[in-house]
C-alpha cells in the first residue's frame, strides 16, 4: 500500500516533469512557426527550379550531359535527414526505416547522415557512413546546404557515386508528415510536365551548356535547403504534438494521483473520527 507521503511525492515529481514538458512544447511551437515561414518561403523557388531543370531534361541534346545521363549504378549516395535530439515520437524512426528499406532494395549505399539519431541507427546496422553532420545551428543551414550541394555534385561528377537520393520527412501539416526518398541526381529526363509545349522554340542564353552549369548548383542548393527545411519543420511539429500528448498525460496522471491522495486522506480522517467516536462511546458507558 502506498502511503500518503509517497503519493504526495509522486505528484510533485510529475508536476515538475509536466513543467519541463510544457516548456519544450512552447519552444517547439515557436520554432515550428519560424520553420514554417522558412519552408513556405523556399517551396515556390524549389518547385519552379525543379520545373526548369526538368524542362531541360526533355531536350534531346542533354541526354549525354553528366547531370542527366543515367550511368550504370554501382554506388548510391543517400542523404538522410534526422534530428539530433529525441522526444519527437516516431519522427526519426519513420524516416530511417523508410530509407533503410529503400537501401535494401539492392543498393550499394554510401550514406551522408545528418543528425545524431540517424548516425546511431546506421552505425548499429553496419551501414557505410561516409560523412556525418550533427548539431547544425538553424541559422547556418542556408550556407551549409550551399557547401553541401557543392560537395554532393563533386562526388557525383567524380564518379564516386552514380546516383544521389535524399531521404527526409515532408511536412504537410502539423498532424501529418510523411517520410520520403527522392532521387536528386541524375535529374529525371522525359518527365511529363503540365502545360509544357514547343520545347524547341525556347532558347537558352548564352547557350544550353552554360545555362545548365549555372542552374544546377542553384537547383541542388535549393533542393537541399528545402529538404532541410521540410525535415526541420516536421521535427518541430512532431515534437510539439508529442509534447502536447505528454503534457496531457501528465495532467491526467496528476489528477488521478490527487484524487487518490484525497481518498486516502478521507479514509484516514474517517478512521480517526470513528476511533474518537468509538472511544468516546466507550468512556461514556
Amino acid at each position: 500500500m502506498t502511503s500518503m507521503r509517497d503519493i504526495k511525492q509522486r505528484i510533485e515529481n510529475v508536476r515538475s516533469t509536466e513543467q519541463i514538458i510544457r516548456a519544450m512544447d512552447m519552444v517547439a511551437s515557436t520554432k515550428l512557426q519560424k520553420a514554417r515561414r522558412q519552408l513556405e518561403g523556399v517551396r515556390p523557388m524549389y518547385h519552379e527550379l525543379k520545373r526548369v531543370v526538368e524542362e531541360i531534361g526533355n531536350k534531346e541534346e542533354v541526354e549525354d550531359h553528366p547531370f542527366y545521363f543515367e550511368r550504370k549504378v554501382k554506388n548510391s549516395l543517400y542523404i538522410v535527414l534526422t534530428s539530433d535530439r529525441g522526444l519527437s515520437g516516431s519522427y526519426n524512426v519513420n524516416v530511417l526505416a523508410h530509407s533503410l528499406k529503400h537501401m535494401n532494395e539492392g543498393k550499394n549505399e554510401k550514406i551522408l547522415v545528418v543528425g545524431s539519431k540517424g548516425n546511431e541507427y546506421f552505425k548499429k546496422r553496419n551501414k557505410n557512413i561516409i560523412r556525418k553532420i550533427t548539431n547544425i545551428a538553424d541559422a547556418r543551414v542556408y550556407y551549409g546546404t550551399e557547401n553541401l550541394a557543392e560537395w554532393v555534385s563533386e562526388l557525383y561528377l567524380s564518379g564516386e557515386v552514380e546516383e544521389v537520393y535524399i531521404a527526409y520527412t515532408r511536412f504537410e501539416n502539423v498532424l501529418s508528415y510523411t517520410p520520403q526518398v527522392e532521387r536528386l541526381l541524375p535529374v529525371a529526363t522525359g518527365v511529363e510536365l503540365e502545360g509544357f509545349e514547343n520545347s524547341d522554340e525556347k532558347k537558352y542564353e548564352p547557350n544550353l551548356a552554360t545555362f545548365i552549369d549555372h542552374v544546377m548548383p542553384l537547383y541542388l542548393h535549393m533542393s537541399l535547403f528545402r529538404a532541410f527545411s521540410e525535415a526541420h519543420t516536421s521535427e518541430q511539429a512532431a515534437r510539439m504534438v508529442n509534447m502536447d500528448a505528454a503534457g496531457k498525460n501528465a495532467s491526467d496522471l496528476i489528477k488521478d494521483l490527487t484524487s487518490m491522495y484525497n481518498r486516502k486522506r478521507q479514509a484516514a480522517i474517517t478512521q480517526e473520527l470513528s476511533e474518537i467516536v468509538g472511544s468516546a462511546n466507550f468512556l461514556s458507558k
Partner: protein
Amino acid sequence: MSEQQTELVQGKKITLNITTPRGEKFVEEADMLIMRCIDGDLGVLPRHEPVSAVLGEGILRIFNDNVEKKIAVFNGIVEIDGTNVNIFSTIAQRPDEIDLERAEQDRREAEAALEASEEVQMRSLQVVLRRSLVRIEVSLHLDDEDE
C-alpha cells in the same frame, strides 16, 4: 507594320516576378526591363521571344510609366516568355532593404585587402619588369644608331 508593332508593345506590360528562397516576391508591372546577365546586359520589352538566361551580379532596372526602379540581383536565372518575366535568384534587394553603411564598409575593407594582396603587387611588379625590359632594349637600339 511598325506602328502596329509599337501599338502591340504599348498595349501590353511585362509582369515581373522575382522569387527568392525567402519567398519574398516582387510582383511588378513594367514597360521595359534591363538586367545584367553573365555575358552582358539584356533588355526586355513585352512580347519577347521565350528565352532563359543566366543572370550575373548587377542591377535590375525596371521602367514603368517613365519611372525607373532599381533592384540589386545577384546571380540566379531568368525565364522570359512573352509578357512574363520570372527571376529566380538567391538575393534580390530593393533600395530600402540595403544597408548602405555596411556596404560602404565592405567596400573599404575589400579595397584595402585587395591593395595589400600579393597578387596585385605581383602584377604591378610584372608591369614594372616588362616595361623596364622594353626600355632597356629600346635604349640599346639608340646606342647602335649613334655609332
